[in-house]
């Protein structure tokens, strides 16, 4: 059997990045939400906030650990499978990745230790500061990575120069243009808010799960409210940002937009395809259900505005995955809007939620992850066949690896990722269940309430008194 190293390497990278992105999309925003819990505690001295903090700190630690190890894997795959990427655009990608590791990654990884295990060892202000720094670190990390990713979609601020071996290499001409490349502000804000929604639904889902298990403690209600209200605030913002990002895509990557819309032909007053099976052979959508003129209205803000069809582009991405990825993302977004608003209404009117709402929230615990992954599929598959739009094709970046080698590593990766995903989800719910029993809590610490908690001496205080 012949293995195609190109296809397998792509699947391997896709599997890796799919698995990886779940965890940063949780931790980026969860870091800030933890800070919110901590600040509420500092302000109110209400123990319930601290209990929420500790519970979700565990979720954070677990997600962060899986994010780190799957992220390390990715940085190695640049070299093992795609050396052409760094050989061609290393002068641009290199500094951005270097800044990511230097300014962000160390910050989060180092202060994470103090944030997780330091509550009894450092003064309260230092523990709060560590929480701030971890949140800043994760966000900075996301910033640099999204700068690089955006640059791959809308490269700017560089020139191609031939090296002495006749290979074209990108050289930076303007770093501000590279960092603030045309799609960066849209992609970065869209991703940050996506992370906010992912974390909000995770918190709401786990809290609803505890609520269903008759754990109606104030900590659970507080976390539930935080999750649902946050989601209700963020989702309209996200719909707006997504729309703006779409307009940016229309300008810079029209072929991707055409694939998202399932638009094969250029049309004035293009319809919005709600359902259809894109068919690359006949170059049309089978079983299409469409709403006339709506796509043009959304994208161009004109009833009969023009949307370029796939026919205009010599090279365009595979249509079906982009088309479907987009519909899954938008579909989940609409569901989020509905659920978070109804949930907020219930919480506002009654101070709690009803049972069907709790079940729906549990079901939507990881909906943010699914939507985020679908969104990334749209943007990344939508860039194909390019790795760096117009500069480097994905095929040209492949290294001299054999299909058999990639097949063996891919098999193991898939097995590990599947196993870890299951282990992760079951551990989350196990922790929620255990937290509800109260069996995990140290009775002595449980006695400490609010202000008392702050007065238990830390290791540093003890030293000071010596």
């Amino acid at each position, binding site marked *: 059997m012949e293995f195609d190293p190109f296809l397998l390497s792509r699947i391997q990278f896709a599997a890796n990045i799919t698995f990886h992105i779940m965890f940063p999309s949780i931790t980026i925003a969860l870091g800030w939400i933890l800070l919110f819990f901590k600040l509420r505690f500092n302000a109110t001295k209400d123990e319930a906030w601290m209990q929420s903090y500790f519970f979700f700190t565990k979720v954070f630690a677990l997600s*962060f650990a899986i994010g780190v190890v799957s992220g390390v894997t990715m940085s*190695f795959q640049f070299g093992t499978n795609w050396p052409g990427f760094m050989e061609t655009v290393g002068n641009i990608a290199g500094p951005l990745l270097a800044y990511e590791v230097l300014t962000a990654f*160390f910050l989060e990884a180092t202060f994470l230790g103090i944030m*997780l295990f330091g509550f009894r060892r450092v003064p309260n202000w230092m523990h709060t500061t560590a929480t701030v720094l971890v949140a800043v670190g994760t966000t900075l990390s996301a910033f640099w990575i999204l700068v690089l990713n955006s640059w791959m979609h809308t490269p700017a601020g560089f020139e191609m120069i031939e090296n002495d071996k006749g290979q074209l290499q990108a050289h930076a001409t303007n770093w501000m243009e590279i960092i603030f490349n045309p799609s960066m502000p849209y992609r970065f804000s869209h991703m940050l808010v996506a992370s906010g929604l992912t974390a909000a639904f995770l918190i709401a889902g786990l809290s609803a799960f505890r609520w269903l298990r008759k754990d109606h403690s104030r900590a659970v209600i507080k976390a539930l409210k935080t999750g649902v209200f946050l989601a209700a605030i963020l989702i309209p913002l996200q719909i707006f940002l997504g729309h703006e990002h779409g307009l940016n895509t229309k300008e810079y990557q029209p072929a991707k937009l055409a694939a998202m819309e399932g638009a094969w032909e250029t049309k004035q007053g293009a319809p919005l395809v709600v359902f259809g099976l894109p068919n690359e052979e006949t170059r049309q959508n089978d079983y299409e259900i469409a709403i006339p003129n709506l796509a043009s209205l959304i994208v161009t803000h004109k009833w009969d505005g023009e949307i370029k069809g796939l026919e205009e582009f010599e090279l365009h991405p595979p249509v079906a995955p982009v088309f479907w990825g987009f519909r899954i993302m938008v579909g989940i977004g609409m569901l989020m809007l509905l659920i978070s608003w109804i949930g907020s209404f219930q919480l506002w009117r009654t101070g709690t939620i009803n049972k069907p709402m709790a079940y729906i929230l549990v079901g939507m615990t990881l909906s943010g992850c699914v939507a985020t992954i679908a969104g990334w599929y749209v943007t990344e598959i939508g860039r194909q066949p390019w790795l760096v739009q117009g500069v480097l094709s994905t095929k040209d970046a492949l290294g001299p690896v054999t299909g058999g080698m990639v097949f063996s590593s891919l098999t193991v990766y898939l097995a590990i990722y599947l196993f870890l995903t299951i*282990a992760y989800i079951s551990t989350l719910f196990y922790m929620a269940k255990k937290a509800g029993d109260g069996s995990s809590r140290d009775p002595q610490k449980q006695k400490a309430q609010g202000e008392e908690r702050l007065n238990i001496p830390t290791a540093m205080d003890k030293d000071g008194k010596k």
Partner: protein
Amino acid sequence: MMEIFNDGTWLPLSFAFLMGLSMLIYAVLDGYDLGVGMLIEGANWHEKDRMIASIGPFWDANETWLILGVGLLLVAFPMAHGIILTELYLPVAIMLFGLIFRGVAFDFRAKAPYQKKWKWNRAFFAGSLLAALAQGYMLGAYIIGFDDSFAGVAFSCVIAVAVASAYCLVGACWLIMKVEGSLQEKSIRWAKYHLGNSVVGLITVSLATPLISDRIFDKWFAFPQIMYLSIIPVITGALIVYLYLLLRKMPFTDDRYCWLPFVITIIIYVLSFVGLAYSFYPYIVPERMTIIEAASAPESLIIMLVGALIVIPILIGYTALAYYVFRGKATELSYD
């Protein structure tokens, strides 16, 4: 010395230095936590908890040095990065599997149901072992220039075991510093055992490298360099003997000098590393590509160097803070 400033080669050389430094720091820091991970196999249930607690606040940051080291290779020497990592495809994959399991096992074991904890303990051990062996294998393969003949693979396997043992040594010395009582005594025994194995590995590398390459032979044994170069093996040898004698006498009353084996081991690591670096300079891919040939464009290197020089002192500062906060004997880890 001035010409390297005038012709611009100082930039790639600075990056080679920074990269080497990151790798060395990684080998020490993640070395001790991988070592502890391997040693838990010989510990009882309660000791395992204490051992893992001793590395709990640090392992995330320790692993980050690998990202920095490989990251610098990736960003400053993209050509070499491609060659080295494609040559080492399988060991890299195996190392990553190991690191994945070990990293997640650390967090899962603390959160999983009690009856599943032993499985995650096993995963923690197996992941640490796999990662250490794979790293050792990669070092071996790198030293002999990716020779995949039978002799080359055999050599790499020997180095794999030696590196795993060296990690156990530094891990055991870390434990001597961080734990007390019977577990500390156990750690002293582990340290003695792995010191022996590590020495075998060190001697193998020291003999093999000059024999494989005439260039390396000439670099070490030409007169008059040999006069001052011989300081490295002499000091290393003396430290190994001293460490052995020290371990035989430990533990001292009031736990005095419990930190000393760890410090000595670090110095041995540094000296071995300097020896290797001297052998391979100016090559970044042995005998194939030099540091200068592999480097990125100067305008990209300079922007990274500025960032690195600002950030690295801060980074060292807050790493020191974390070690200060969690100084002293390891206690039970708890979030609250």
